[in-house]
């Protein structure tokens, strides 16, 4: 059977399988015919629970057929496991043939077996002590409702006393000779020692008020309840001693951790870690990060007025002179381009215009600078041809085309205006 299909009853979280199997054997011993009456296979109980769940979910008053049951249990137990248990369930009366539909071979679930499954689960989860709690509740209810006579109350008080006595002896035996693992497994079943004592006192008080003759039985019950409570304390003390010596916290339940954290004084909680070594607190803060943060929080600088400019020396403004020189150079360049255009809008220079490298370079450079100047309305296009004249003064030349462009003056620009006017005047 796959592990994920196992319910909690026999899982390690609910209880140890072997321990529960042992407890189950002891539970059935009073009515068993022989020592082999209890299946050692934990799957047996799983099949019964799967069958119980199938009936509980089916809502079918007519019952279920074997095949319907097998299909419903297929997710929880393997088919061969189901088959191995089915006939036994029928033989022992857990599954009963439906009397109305004999020809249908349908089965119904016996409620007595359903109650047994609930008991098994309680036995696994909280052990037999829970039965004492329930018995006390029943006596209390019966006394309050006046539904029990003196003899039945006395019988129940005696039964509770014996239960408490047996559990107290069991705990003392464990404390003296039980292995630590046994104590750990048993601890969940004896969490309510003080509560049991309180419940017993309340029941004895009610019983004595209603049936004064039961005072002696009540006193005996209180004596054994005290003995059980003392056994629980001794049991817990042994657990704590061992846990403290070995620093084993596995015995504490989550709720006990929480309670300790909420209610214990700080010094007691800190005591646990007196022999534990910790790293000192760590803070990674490189100077680079520090400087970045400081930069972010630097105070805003007060606005500084720029210093007054120095007085200009006498004579013409040098900046104005520079501007004039630039305008003159542009005008000269524009005039040179107009000369090349010869009044037209486009011209091709297919050969050197000067009989020297220097003159030819001047023409080309002037044309390229003029083309790059947004205030001179020409464009220059260089051909990808190469003219070669091995015998000439300029041995090679790349033809260029110069075009005049329309110029739009969008703003009042004295420099552009001077070029246009100069061009017109030239």
């Amino acid at each position, binding site marked *: 059977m796959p592990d994920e299909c196992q319910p909690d009853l026999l899982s390690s979280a609910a209880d140890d399988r072997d321990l529960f199997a042992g407890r189950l054997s002891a539970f059935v011993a009073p009515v068993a015919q022989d020592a082999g009456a209890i299946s050692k296979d934990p799957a047996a109980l799983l099949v019964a629970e799967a069958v119980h769940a199938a009936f509980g979910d089916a809502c079918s008053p007519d019952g279920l057929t074997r095949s319907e049951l097998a299909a419903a249990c297929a997710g929880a137990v393997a088919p061969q496991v189901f088959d191995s248990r089915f006939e036994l369930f029928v033989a022992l009366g857990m599954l009963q043939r439906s009397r109305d539909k004999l020809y249908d071979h349908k089965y119904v679930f016996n409620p007595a077996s359903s109650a047994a499954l609930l008991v098994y689960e309680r036995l696994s989860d909280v052990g037999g002590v829970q039965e004492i709690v329930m018995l006390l509740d029943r006596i209390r209810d019966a006394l309050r409702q006046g539904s029990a006579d003196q003899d039945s109350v006395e019988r129940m008080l005696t039964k509770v006393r014996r239960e408490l006595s047996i559990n107290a002896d069991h705990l003392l035996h464990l404390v003296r000779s039980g292995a630590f693992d046994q104590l750990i497994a048993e601890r969940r079943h004896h969490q309510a020692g003080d509560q049991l004592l309180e419940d017993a006192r309340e029941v004895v008080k009610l019983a004595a008020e209603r049936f004064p003759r039961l005072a002696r039985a009540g006193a005996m019950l209180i004596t054994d309840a005290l003995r059980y409570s003392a056994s629980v304390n001794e049991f817990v003390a042994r657990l704590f001693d061992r846990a403290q010596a070995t620093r084993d916290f596995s015995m504490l339940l989550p709720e006990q951790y929480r309670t300790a954290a909420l209610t214990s004084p700080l010094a007691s909680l800190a005591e646990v870690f007196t022999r534990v*070594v*910790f*790293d*000192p*607190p*760590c*803070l*990674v*803060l*490189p*100077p*680079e*990060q*520090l*400087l970045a*943060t*400081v*930069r*972010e*929080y*630097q*105070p*805003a600088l007060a606005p500084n007025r720029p210093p007054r400019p120095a007085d200009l020396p006498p004579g013409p403004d040098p900046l104005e002179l520079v501007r004039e020189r630039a305008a003159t150079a542009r005008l000269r360049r524009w005039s040179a381009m107009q000369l090349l255009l010869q009044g037209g809008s486009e011209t091709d220079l297919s050969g050197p215009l000067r009989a020297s490298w220097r003159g030819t370079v001047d023409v080309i450079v002037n044309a390229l600078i003029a083309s790059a100047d947004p205030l001179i309305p020409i464009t220059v296009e260089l051909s990808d041809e190469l003219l070669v004249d091995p015998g000439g003064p300029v041995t090679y030349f790349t033809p260029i085309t110069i075009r005049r462009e329309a110029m739009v003056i969008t703003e009042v620009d004295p420099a552009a205006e001077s070029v246009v006017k100069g061009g017109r005047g030239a």
Partner: protein
Amino acid sequence: MPDATYSLARVRALGVAHVPGDRGGLESLRAAADQAGRRLVDVLGPDGKPGITLGWRIGDEPSVLDEPLSEICRQVTVSVQLMLAACLRCCWPDPAEPLYPGGAATEADVFRALDGLRSQASGPEHSEAGKGVHSSRKSALRVLRACAFLEPGAEDGRIRLGSAIALWTPSEIAELARNYDLLPSPRGGAS
């Protein structure tokens, strides 16, 4: 060697430990540190005597952005960073001198240096304005002392740089010295 390993663990747990009395002990401790990717750094103990602390080997320093480190290390708040910057400036009057161990400064000087910075109320820690500037600064000092960036509170109440500062590399300290004027000064603003 086991003794040296235990001694190394002791230095790690204590933060700062006294220098071993014998030369051989110091050498084996140094070897154990080297084997663990760490190095011994000379510092001053809380009693003013020479001590040693554990730093990372140069080049093996963990990065702030390394995820595991960011999980185990406390995140540094802005107020703690600014407090450390002010402490550095107040305890390090001359950037030409070594940063560590530096001098001592009063809390008043350090707080005055912080007064010159832009208010953090407009920064990411808006809630600090409500918490109270003074308690926030005191809290930042406690964090820095706990993490060894400052010496634990001395009887004279003065602030001194802690052993964690000694772990900064020379290049990091040079970077700080270059930006010395950025550090908040008790005389107000950048000097």
